[in-house]
């Protein structure tokens, strides 16, 4: 167990270093001059040089990188934004809950949809329901979230006034002078984003769960269970599902970890101030500290969720030991 954690930790450091170094290098290679952009049109060469010095952009790249890592390790600080001098920690602290709402809520929805549909499709392969589900899978996999988002928000939001068209309401703190806030408004505003975000995953999971269940149904131990005289219900729940849903745990953990880095398309369509939209905005402004901050945050999310998956797997599957 200890060995496992140590190895995981070293792996995490390696991931962190490669992700940040690559991001730095890209910024170094791309022809841009953040100091000039930040300073504005009216700046003289001297002003720009001062800004450049102030932001340490006049230092060699390895020095900048060293400074960044030092700030992060020693002070837990991801630096400050080039454009508005806000703490990157603060920016991420604002945006992460929005993305988390989208991803976790979406995950609940896509599981609620894909589990019953996938299992039923597997049990009644080639039935009408199965064919309908497979059509849904095809559509869900092929349709782009931006397209789905625009369609949904136009019809359900703009035409039918069933949902908000866009925007986000905080779960905890209602904004001043509006009723936008609290769990109900939060969920109401998230309905369409959840739907948009989860469709692709729901489609993928339906197909994945269906295939897994169908494969498990042909396993010898399922035949053994039937030979014992176990009821079909018992065979399904105790023998088929327990085994066929193990891999779902794995990819669920990975997908959530990955998606927390930003569900860019969905957040853009619905103007949700999450990580995805933030990274897009910062990219346009060459705001390296913010982008790096989000890269670091995503890397940490992925590492943590992979760890959770591994530990969960060891609990669920007696054949796996953490070594």
């Amino acid at each position, binding site marked *: 167990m200890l060995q496992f954690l140590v190895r995981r930790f070293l792996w995490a450091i390696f991931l962190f270093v490669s992700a940040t170094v690559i991001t730095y290098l890209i910024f170094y290679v791309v022809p841009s001059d953040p100091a000039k952009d930040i300073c504005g049109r009216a700046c003289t060469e001297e002003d720009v040089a001062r800004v450049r010095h102030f932001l340490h952009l006049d230092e060699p790249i390895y020095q900048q990188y060293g400074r960044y890592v030092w700030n992060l390790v020693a002070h837990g600080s991801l630096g400050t934004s080039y454009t508005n001098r806000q703490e990157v920690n603060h920016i991420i602290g604002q945006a992460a809950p929005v993305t988390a709402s989208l991803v976790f809520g979406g995950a609940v929805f896509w599981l609620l949809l894909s589990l019953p549909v996938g299992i039923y499709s597997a049990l009644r392969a080639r039935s009408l329901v199965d064919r309908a589900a497979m059509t849904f899978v095809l559509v869900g996999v092929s349709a782009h979230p931006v397209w789905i988002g625009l369609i949904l928000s136009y019809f359900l939001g703009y035409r039918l006034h069933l949902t908000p068209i866009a925007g986000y309401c905080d779960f905890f703190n209602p904004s001043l002078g509006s009723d936008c806030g609290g769990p109900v408004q939060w969920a109401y505003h998230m309905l369409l984003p959840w739907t948009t975000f989860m469709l692709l995953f729901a489609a993928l999971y339906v197909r994945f769960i269906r295939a897994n269940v169908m494969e498990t149904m042909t396993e010898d*131990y399922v035949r053994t269970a039937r030979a*014992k005289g176990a009821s079909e219900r018992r065979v399904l729940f*105790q023998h088929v599902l327990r085994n066929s849903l193990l891999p779902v745990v794995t990819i669920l953990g990975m997908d959530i970890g990955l998606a927390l880095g930003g569900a860019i398309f969905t957040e853009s369509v619905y103007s949700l101030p999450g990580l995805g939209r933030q990274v897009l905005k910062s990219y346009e402004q060459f705001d390296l500290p913010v982008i790096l901050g989000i890269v670091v945050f995503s890397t940490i999310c992925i590492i943590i969720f992979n760890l959770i998956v591994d530990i969960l797997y060891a609990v669920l599957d007696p054949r796996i030991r953490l070594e």
Partner: protein
Amino acid sequence: MTAVLQVRDLRTSFRTDDGIVKAVDGVSFDVEKGKTLGIVGESGSGKSVTCLTVMGLNDRRNATSSGSVLFDGRELLGAPPEQLREIRGDRIAMIFQDPMTSLNPVKSIGWQLEEAVLVHNDVTRSQARARALELLKAVGIPRAETRIDDYPHQFSGGMRQRVMIAMALVNNPDILIADEPTTALDVTTQAQILTLMRRLQREFNMAIVMITHDLGVIAEIADDVVVMYAGKIVEQATVDDLFERPQHPYTWGLLGSLPRLQGESERLYQIPGQPPSLLRPPSGCAFHPRCEFAFDRCPVVVPELVEFADGHRHRCLLDDARRLQIWEQKKLELKGEAA
């Protein structure tokens, strides 16, 4: 002699994308109380499907069966699933070829044995556990008290097959159907499992249906033998009769391919060719393309199962005198090899 299981004219066919496969084609036999019936044949001869049909374990979506399966006076074929379920694992139990994959990998063996008890009996889990433990000891699992909470992957193949046997016997069945239970095991383990099955058969006074492709296993354990080829019975006899005066060329081939300890280690005899496709079986006698004694009638006439002596039947078109002559010669050849 009382037959606990009577199978009459059993036919099972599967619908496939390429057409209808007649996997079992008019099979009849009796299983006597406390006795062992051996069913021998190559892969694809229909021996496993016969037993799965008896158990009602064929995929209902593409398998159709006809004929009769009488168990204890009750017709099993076409019986409601709920009735079959009550008999399965309780009165008729089954063990399978591959003990490595036949146990659920994520449940402890104790759990799986308890399940077999709980499905059929109204007892508490601790009572079920006591029964499970009793059986694990009976099949010779060392330190059963501690191993009961282990998972299948923590057991060797032979031990897993013992667990399977324990699980099958946990409800004191009348019949144990064993589908090649020793095929996946090494030779010494095979012998142990067969010895165990013989001992348990006496203790539990149950009938065994032993499916195998190995006449050696038949010689060890069977009282009566059914030889199957291409979904049909080609020979049916008591075990002594079958080894003493086999009547069908296919049986001769199987006997010839038995390894012997004595004598020089020559290459084993091999029945030439492959088992036929059941999708398009050969005309006439299904064995004729591989039969060295086939003559002009064989590809044309479908042979009937004829009674050769009391309880000894065969499905061959050769006349008795010719068959006797060939067998006398074969016997000498086999003995010669042995000497």
